[in-house]
């Protein structure tokens, strides 16, 4: 009888703790809803066509938009991809197809460590190797900083997708007498293309929202986009500046810019996941 009531109490305790686990999950989801909700509601109230098509205006003048910063973000992401994709993809191919086990694990380790370096440190690095010698903040230095963040992500996801291509395909192609590099580029990479593109898009979504490495590389620009060796604006950078400014007009613009950035970043994430899930089925 006593043992039975002990068991009952243990069951009660178990049930309570399991409910708490559910509550923890609900809390996390609630936080996401709060962040997205405030961003969407605050952002949409300022958003207009002008905000996307107009240049920013100096303090005191109402209105103005973030056309140049939106443009700048696309340029920086494009530039970073241009640098990071060849490096990341080739490194991924090496890891999956050519490296011996010891070599592969050493390089994989380095890639994981590089991916874990705080982005602000990458910004300091880009400042030291490009901004300082060239005596100017530039789109180029910001692109390099973003590329360094992107490379290990692309390399690791490319490697993982390439490994999923069945060995029988490699063997079949080899049996036809085709050389390995043509097999890799003509058979294996196309076979893994969904996974590789997924990885690239997720990396793009990540660097599109990066701010820390841009503060002392891109700097921001009041004169629009003027070429790769000049300072350039970016959406996340402008959110940071405007959010910390004392002007309520600018703060509202920060929310509107955050709205655009959230749509961009989460949009890429959601589309990519839906597409890759359908492929798996």
């Amino acid at each position: 009888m006593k043992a039975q009531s002990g068991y009952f109490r243990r069951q009660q305790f178990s049930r309570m703790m399991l409910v708490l686990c559910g509550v923890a999950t609900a809390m996390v989801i609630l936080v996401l809803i709060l962040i997205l909700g405030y961003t969407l509601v605050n952002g949409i109230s300022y958003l207009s066509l002008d905000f996307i098509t107009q240049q920013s205006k100096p303090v005191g003048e109402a209105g103005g938009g973030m056309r140049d910063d939106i443009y700048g973000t696309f340029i920086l992401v494009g530039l970073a991809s241009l640098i990071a994709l060849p490096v990341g993809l080739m490194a991924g191919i090496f890891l999956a197809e050519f490296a011996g086990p010891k070599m592969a694990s050493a390089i994989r380790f380095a890639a994981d460590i590089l991916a874990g370096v705080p982005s602000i440190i990458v910004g300091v690095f880009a400042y030291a190797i490009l901004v300082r010698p060239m005596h100017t903040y530039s789109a180029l230095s910001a692109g390099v900083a973003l590329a360094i963040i992107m490379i290990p992500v692309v390399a690791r996801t490319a490697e993982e997708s390439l490994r999923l291509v069945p060995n029988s395909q490699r063997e079949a192609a080899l049996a036809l007498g085709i050389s390995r590099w043509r097999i890799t580029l003509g058979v294996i990479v196309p076979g893994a293309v969904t996974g590789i593109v997924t990885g690239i898009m997720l990396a793009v979504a990540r660097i599109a929202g990066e701010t820390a490495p841009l503060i002392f590389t891109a700097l921001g620009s009041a004169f629009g986009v003027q070429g790769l060796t000049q300072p350039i604006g970016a959406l996340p950078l402008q959110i940071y500046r405007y959010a910390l400014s004392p002007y309520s007009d600018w703060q509202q613009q920060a929310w509107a810019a955050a709205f655009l950035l959230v749509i961009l970043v989460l949009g890429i994430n959601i589309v990519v996941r839906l597409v890759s899930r359908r492929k798996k089925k």
Partner: protein
Amino acid sequence: MPARVGDKIFSRLTLFFSVLMVAILIALLVVLGIDAWPAIQKFGLSFITSIEWDPVNEVFGALPAIYGTLLTSLIGLLIAVPISLGSAVFLSELAPDWMRRPCSFVIEMLAAIPSVIIGLWGLYVMVPFIRSPIETWLGSNLGFLPLFQGPPFGVGFLSAGIILAIMVIPIITAVSREVIAAVPLTQREAMLALGATRWEMITRSVLPYCRSGLVGGVILGLGRALGETMAVTMVIGNSYALSPSLFSPGATIASKVASEFNEASGDLYIGSLIELALVLFAITLLVNIIARLLVWRTVSVRGTGE
């Protein structure tokens, strides 16, 4: 044979880019070391132990920033670990099948939100709420503790810690969920057959089995928290204080670098900021290496165990 030549060129090319990736990592360390050298030479070890930061007289010390980095990360983990473990247990052991995917998806989305947007939300939505009621309540009820003394600013260590918790929860949850899923079913069945309740099964059989993977996930989260910049810079208040009170505004290494680098002038000032970055680099490097080794070990245990 020409085919062989093509193969050789191609594999060398892929090797070259892999080595380039490793070279970037090494270059990061070397370049930061060189640029920090004026500060390293001038201050030596006292850089780590000094609390002064005086650009006018060119005296720089890192202690308050290191303290702020460790304190905010600690607060972040204290909040994030129980919530993350709870969610991971819920998602892998309890949730009905139809709930698992959407819930995991939503938590992954939280990880994807740019840090600057979490900072914006933190500054305008969360900080006022922290100031009152949270800090005023803590101050009047637990004010006898040095932790909760001083005026409630809202911005400060506490807010930064909570923001960090929000940012590392998705990471810790994802890793924990994965290592919990790797625990063999037989472990659970054996425990249930002995008459354990589900909670006892989880705490005495499942979690101990994947302990090192869980620790790895937590340390991975720590690595992220230590280097997190934008959101923290926006809510920590940017004062260079070594205060025991969680209400006090402060700075972390990352926030100090982010907020001062552009205004810094002179080799010594810039060198000191770069040395700060180097200290952060060293800490995160160590933490990430430990985390990787731990997570890898569990994964390889799983590989041989089945």
